[in-house]
């Protein structure tokens, strides 16, 4: 079998639809199949990343034999390849973490794994596709899987969070559909490279209208203010591995689509300032809201929104260093926030309430979990020698290079807020008075394994950032080189 980017989309989708049948053959297959698919995709990622790095050329896959501007194509470049590999890596770890999910009951486990595979298909597809309408379709696959996963538990307020998410999400998808329609009437094509090439013929007023519709539609998944009302509820009501999935896959796909639309499709200077301003508002509001939260998962959700604001700021600065910092931060956010959600979920299980106060002294009874959570907390606020330090440093340097000193000041001030609310939790874990409650829910072996891997990655990247910076540098170069993207995709037809 020839390895190609199509496998990223075809295999998880096939697995998702075959699983109900396979469940009839053997109950255990439901849990094994997603792992087999994801491990294979990890192998595909390694092979394709190596090929792309060696040749320096993106792999462009045309589907159903239709060449570039007419058919749908998949673009596996150093930028999209980096994001896809990150997503698949995270999905594999989340699968290991949730291998024993709903052990006693097979029916919910089946539903969970089907939706999980759909989510992987959708968010990987958003990143790989080179067609704007196809991106919309993958966005909707991701969204529908997310709505269902949010409302997975019947006994919580999941349905309410899910409905809220659905309401915002489907309005957003309508806006995106309108944007695609207007764009199609203006440029007469749906291929993103072709759109980028013909964009200069579109009148400015029309361009701005389309861009605003796109930003509204895509800002939802990217957790951009003021479209992120769904996030805290969804993160706190969804099952814990799903919280990690949102942080590692769904939000990354949202940010990717936003960046692709602004950087490749449109060439409006004001869009970058808009990103900075929205990023600052998102960052400040989210971090202050996080400080006020008493519920651990809601706090982590707001912190996640804040991090995305930070990513938007970095992309908005727009220089090569800033884009490098932003991609580095996206990588860090995926690994660190997943670790926090995974380890935090065990504190929530074992405490009297979901509140941070209920976790008093749990770090003493649960030393390894407390240690992992602390690594995550230290890493996300940007303490050296953890990986979060480097991304924050690179973004600050990039902002200072552009002499945006006010921005540097805001980022540093908000970092203090971040330190306050994360250290409050860590202090509670270790120095709080232990409650009488026994530790009943211990992580499974898979849980320990995936959390340990994440912690090791955080430390490894913290000490030797060079192992990852090469990939991120090339990814940033590829993203900024719009001309190469257009010529690579369109030359396939000639």
């Amino acid at each position, binding site marked *: 079998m020839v390895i190609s980017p199509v496998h990223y989309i075809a295999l998880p989708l096939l697995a998702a639809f075959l699983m109900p049948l396979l469940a009839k053959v053997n109950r255990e297959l439901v849990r094994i199949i997603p792992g087999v698919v994801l491990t294979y995709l990890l192998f595909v990622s390694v092979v394709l990343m190596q090929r792309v790095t060696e040749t320096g050329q993106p792999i462009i896959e045309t589907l159903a034999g239709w060449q570039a501007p007419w058919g749908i194509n998949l673009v596996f470049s150093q930028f999209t390849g980096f994001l896809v590999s990150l997503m698949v890596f995270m999905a594999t770890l989340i699968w290991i973490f949730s291998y024993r999910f709903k052990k006693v009951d097979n029916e919910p486990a089946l539903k969970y794994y089907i939706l999980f595979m759909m989510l992987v298909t959708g968010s990987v597809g958003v990143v790989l596709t080179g067609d704007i*309408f196809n991106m919309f*379709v993958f966005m*909707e696959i991701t*969204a*529908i899987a997310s*709505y*269902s996963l949010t*409302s997975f538990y*019947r006994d919580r*307020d999941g*349905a*309410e*969070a*899910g*409905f*809220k998410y*659905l*309401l915002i999400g*489907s*309005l957003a*998808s*309508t806006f995106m*559909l*309108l944007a*695609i*329609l207007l764009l*199609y*009437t203006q440029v007469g094509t*749906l291929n993103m490279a072709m759109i980028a090439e013909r964009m200069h013929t579109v009148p400015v007023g029309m361009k701005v209208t389309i861009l605003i519709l796109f930003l509204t539609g895509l800002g939802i998944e990217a957790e951009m203010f003021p479209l992120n009302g769904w996030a805290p*509820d969804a993160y706190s*009501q969804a099952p814990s591995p799903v919280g990690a999935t949102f942080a590692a896959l769904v939000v990354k796909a949202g940010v990717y689509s936003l960046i692709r639309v602004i950087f490749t499709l449109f060439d409006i200077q004001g869009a970058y300032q808009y990103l900075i301003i929205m990023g600052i508002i998102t960052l400040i509001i989210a971090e202050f809201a996080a400080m006020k939260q008493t519920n651990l998962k809601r706090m982590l959700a707001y912190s996640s929104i804040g991090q995305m604001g930070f990513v938007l700021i970095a992309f908005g600065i727009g220089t090569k260093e800033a884009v490098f910092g932003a991609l580095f931060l996206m990588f860090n956010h995926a690994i660190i926030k997943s670790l926090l959600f995974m380890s935090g979920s065990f504190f929530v299980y074992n405490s009297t309430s979901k509140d941070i106060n209920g976790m008093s002294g749990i770090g003493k009874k649960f030393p390894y979990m407390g240690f992992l959570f602390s690594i995550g907390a230290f890493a996300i606020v940007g303490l050296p020698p953890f990986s979060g330090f480097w991304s924050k440093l690179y973004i600050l340097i990039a902002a200072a290079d552009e002499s945006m000193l006010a921005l540097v000041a805001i980022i540093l001030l908000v970092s203090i807020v971040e330190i306050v609310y994360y250290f409050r939790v860590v202090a509670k874990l270790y120095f709080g008075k232990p409650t009488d409650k026994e530790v009943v829910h211990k992580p499974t072996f898979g849980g320990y394994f995936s959390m340990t891997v994440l912690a090791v990655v955080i430390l490894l990247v913290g000490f030797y950032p060079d192992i990852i910076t090469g990939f991120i540098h090339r990814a940033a170069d590829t993203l900024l080189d719009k001309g190469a993207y257009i010529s690579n995709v369109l030359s396939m037809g000639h």
Partner: protein
Amino acid sequence: MDPILYNKIISVGVYGSAIGLILIGLYAVLVKKHLTKIVIGLSIIDSGVHLLFIAVGFIKGGTAPIFSEKGIELVNQGTAMVDPVPQALVLTAIVIGFGVTAVALSLVIRLYRHHHTARIDHIKSLKW
């Protein structure tokens, strides 16, 4: 009737009803308190957008975009084909809209069973 005027009336009618549908749907989503009415609003908005898509791809007197002997013959005689792309997009969008509506309604049922009400202002476990 004057054909130009006729075309104008038709296009104003089609685009007007598309935008009208979108506005009606938005009104339902933003103002109505009943969950089912909100879901109906969402699907009315969808219908408006779909109508807009079809209107954009339409050419008056154009033939169906099918690559058949009859179609090729008609094109050779100078008949235009309507744009097939918006039609394909609409087909996809309808399916997606159907999926979203189904998920939304199932959530409404879950909410109703949980809270014994379908009014959005009576469901307040989370902050809205």
